[in-house]
């Protein structure tokens, strides 16, 4: 199977993927370094997290990523109605993720684990909050895809691929954040 090599989406978007990954990596490094300084306190605060919920969130987001990748496949095959359904699925999964996230925050805050209660929680709310902001921007981006699909005149495969790249980036960051906040000991 030989295919021509092509950049997925707009080349310049990859600058964002790389640059924003590095910015997030710098936040992660600060967290890991801090964590090593106060290991015991971090472990204690970390035990308040609900791992199964985190795993459900991760699977929701991974599935949304799969759905938007399927959407792009359908767009390439010019099956726009089916592509629309995949975008809706992506939005639904993203909303479900955000709902879980909100429920998790509410539960933690209710239990007294707030932004200011411990250093671990400071990092937790900061990283998940920054991720949530990226996710919310992602909904705007999904809206752009939907708009593009609905209107044959303005339909640009490249724009759709660029937008899906953004959505995957939201997923990329979550995969790291999840491992670092929930699993790392």
């Amino acid at each position, binding site marked *: 199977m030989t295919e021509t090599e092509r950049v997925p989406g707009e080349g310049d978007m990859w600058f964002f993927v790389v640059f924003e990954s590095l910015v997030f990596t710098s936040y992660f490094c600060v967290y890991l370094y801090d964590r090593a300084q106060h290991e015991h306190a971090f*472990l204690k605060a970390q035990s308040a997290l609900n*791992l199964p919920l985190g795993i459900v969130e991760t699977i929701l987001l*991974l599935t949304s990523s799969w759905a938007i990748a399927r959407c792009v496949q359908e767009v390439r095959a010019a099956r726009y109605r089916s592509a629309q359904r995949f975008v809706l699925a992506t939005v639904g999964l993203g909303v479900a993720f955000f709902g879980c996230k909100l429920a998790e925050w509410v539960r933690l805050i209710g239990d007294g684990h707030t932004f200011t209660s411990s250093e671990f929680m400071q990092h937790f709310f900061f990283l998940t909050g920054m991720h949530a902001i990226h996710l919310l921007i992602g909904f705007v981006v999904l809206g752009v895809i939907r708009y593009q699909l609905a209107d044959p005149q303005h339909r640009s495969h490249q724009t759709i691929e660029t937008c899906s790249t953004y959505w995957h980036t939201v997923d990329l960051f979550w995969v790291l954040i999840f491992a670092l906040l929930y699993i790392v000991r």
Partner: protein
Amino acid sequence: METSAKKRLLVAWVVVVAITVIYLWIDRSADDRGVLVSSVAVTVAAIGLALVKFRIILGEFMDVRHAPRALRRITDLLVVVIAMALLSAYFVGRAVA
């Protein structure tokens, strides 16, 4: 060819979800009856597995697999840089502590 692409995407999804579920097992086995215990092995494994998922999302979902060499190189380099940065932050932090 098209069905194979679809299938491949599904396999990628199954793999990343499976890795996510492995975390549950790692997490259970790492702790001492519900009390969280510090562990270098778990930390390194968590970061390693996350980067495997990171790489799969890039390659399969984001279609870097079919991208020109330059982009493939850049994203591979990104994974390496992130791995080195995270591990060194962790180990330097431990050494200083």
